[in-house]
């Protein structure tokens, strides 16, 4: 494309090669404006790519990435045969499915209710309150949860004791975390996500709603037959994009809430937390990289598929 334009630009100037050089010179300011970003992505996104090779070696410090013994697919083989890869993939995908499905349902629910509110003041204040969790760091999310749930002094246990009930110790019980993590994730994201749907409702033609009212549609019918169908395109697009990221975990949430509590790992270990541990505490860079590469490839395929589907349904929204 760039070449084609360059040729066109040089139509009067004779040779093709000189044309390209001239074009490059002509747009030197715009090129310079892009240069810092080009260098940035080269340094932090492209430079790590050759290092993927570490997934195929048995890494040691003396040898470094390219001097360690090559062992082919053994790292992958180990991860697959030990069942680790399957467990991590399963956890990551199941959590994401719960986040995506319940997250969208709750966001739509909140957006529709907000739309029915007539008090501007109430709308504003409640939206601001719901937005608060989005602005805090994941570290603080971990602390909020700890302060609520810890066995010794946590708020929930304070209440339980006061009611004469037995204390609850979720930090030593892996079975409750799938539910807890979903709740925490929804708590943090819904305020933000509902804005997208709220904007979509605002985009529905007000005349259609008025017309329905005049025709005698009641509130439930209005939501069922006008608002929900009106939100469908937004929902479909958001779901498809979410599918593109189905193997990418919410590392900050899991790392800060679960942390290094290995009792909880069977139900809370996702790809990101495993890779982080393998790289930073076990220094097993080869294994960490093998899992990371596996994740990148699956992720890439998922994005391609979801983008392909988006392009079929709603070409305007496709990524590329």
């Amino acid at each position: 494309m760039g070449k084609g334009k360059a040729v066109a630009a040089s139509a009067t100037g004779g040779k093709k090669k000189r044309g390209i050089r001239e074009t490059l010179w002509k747009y030197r300011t715009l090129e310079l404006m892009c240069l810092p970003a080009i260098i940035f992505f080269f340094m932090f996104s492209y430079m790590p790519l050759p290092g993927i090779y570490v997934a195929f070696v048995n890494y040691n410090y003396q040898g470094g990435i390219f001097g360690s013994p090559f062992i082919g697919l053994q790292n992958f083989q180990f991860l697959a045969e030990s069942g680790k890869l399957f467990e991590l993939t399963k956890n990551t995908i199941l959590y994401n499915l719960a986040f995506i499905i319940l997250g969208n349902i709750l966001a739509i629910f909140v957006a529709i209710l907000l739309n029915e509110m007539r008090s501007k003041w109430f709308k504003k204040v409640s939206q601001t309150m719901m937005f608060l969790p989005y602005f805090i760091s994941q570290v603080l999310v971990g602390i909020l949860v700890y302060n609520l749930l810890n066995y010794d002094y946590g708020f929930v246990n304070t209440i339980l004791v006061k009611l004469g009930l037995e204390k609850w110790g979720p930090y030593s019980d892996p079975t409750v975390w799938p539910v807890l993590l979903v709740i925490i994730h929804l708590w943090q994201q819904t305020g933000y996500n509902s804005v997208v749907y709220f904007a979509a409702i605002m985009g529905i033609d007000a005349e259609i709603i008025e017309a329905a009212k005049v025709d005698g549609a009641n509130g439930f019918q209005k939501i069922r037959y006008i608002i929900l169908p009106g939100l469908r395109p937004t929902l479909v697009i958001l779901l498809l994009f979410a599918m593109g990221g189905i193997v990418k975990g919410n590392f900050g949430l899991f790392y800060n809430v679960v942390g290094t509590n290995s009792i909880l790992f069977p139900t809370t270990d996702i790809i990101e937390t495993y890779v982080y541990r393998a790289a930073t505490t076990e220094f097993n860079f080869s294994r960490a990289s093998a899992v990371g590469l596996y994740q990148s490839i699956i992720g890439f395929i998922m994005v391609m598929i979801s983008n392909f589907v988006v392009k079929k349904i709603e070409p305007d929204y496709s990524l590329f």
Partner: protein
Amino acid sequence: MAKNKDLDLMESGSKVKIGISDMIIRGFGYFFVTLYALACVFPFLIIIGTSFTSETVIRAEGVKLIPKEATLQAYEMVVHGGLIWKSYGLTITLTLCGTLLGLSIIAMTGYALQRKDFPLRNGISFYIYFTSLFSAGLAPYYLLMTQTYHLKDSYFAVFLPLLMSPWLIILMKNFVKAIPHEITESGKIDGAGDMRIFIDLILPMLKPALATIGLFLALGYWNEWYQSSLFLSSRIAVKPLQFQLYKVVNEAQALKNSVAGQYVSVSDIPTESLKMATAVLATGPIVFLYPFVQKYFIGGITVGAVKG
């Protein structure tokens, strides 16, 4: 509330009256949204309550919403420990420098890539966009940063990677798209160079975009803990605020360091209230500021969330 109901009847009264179903939906809406909004704020209130509660009460009766025997002891200790102010200084510096630098680069790139006559725009856009499709993963990145760039224990390891992201550049491009190309054309006719056009004509029109993207950057720097946890070891005494908070909550040693030299006995340190006081201090500015800037974030969502 009653007043609003009246307003409502007046608004729609001319055409349709409010049916029972509307009343049910509205009533349930007020109930549910109130409850949900309170649930969003509630955990913060407990943290604040805990930070003012004396340690003996916490140990005997647990954490409470309203502190019994309210005390400022935990805050006094954090403040006297002094480490948190150094973290504040570091985080504010990182946030200001990172936001300014990142924003300048993102704005320039976003404008250049949206220029219809720029032949390299598609190539460079893809070059940037591709990085969000496929990445090397954590391990090669970590090895590169520590062994090739030697950024272990350097603040640059925290500062640099947060400067920009493909998503923010795309968001900027979408904002620039709304500016008519004729403005660039008119600048050209007046004989202005591309940089002049960008600074004098385009930037003033990009104010909402700069506010939105600047706030996303600033929030990223303020809430940073991930790069710090990867690259800053315990040899670095002054850590970015959120990472300092992480350390104080998760490591007994860091908790002790944060109140260094004030108490003889370790068992006298009010552990729980101290953690929560640090959390309140590290988060306070955001909680006070975000209501004033949230509209820019909402703008960001509606301009760039769905459309890439």
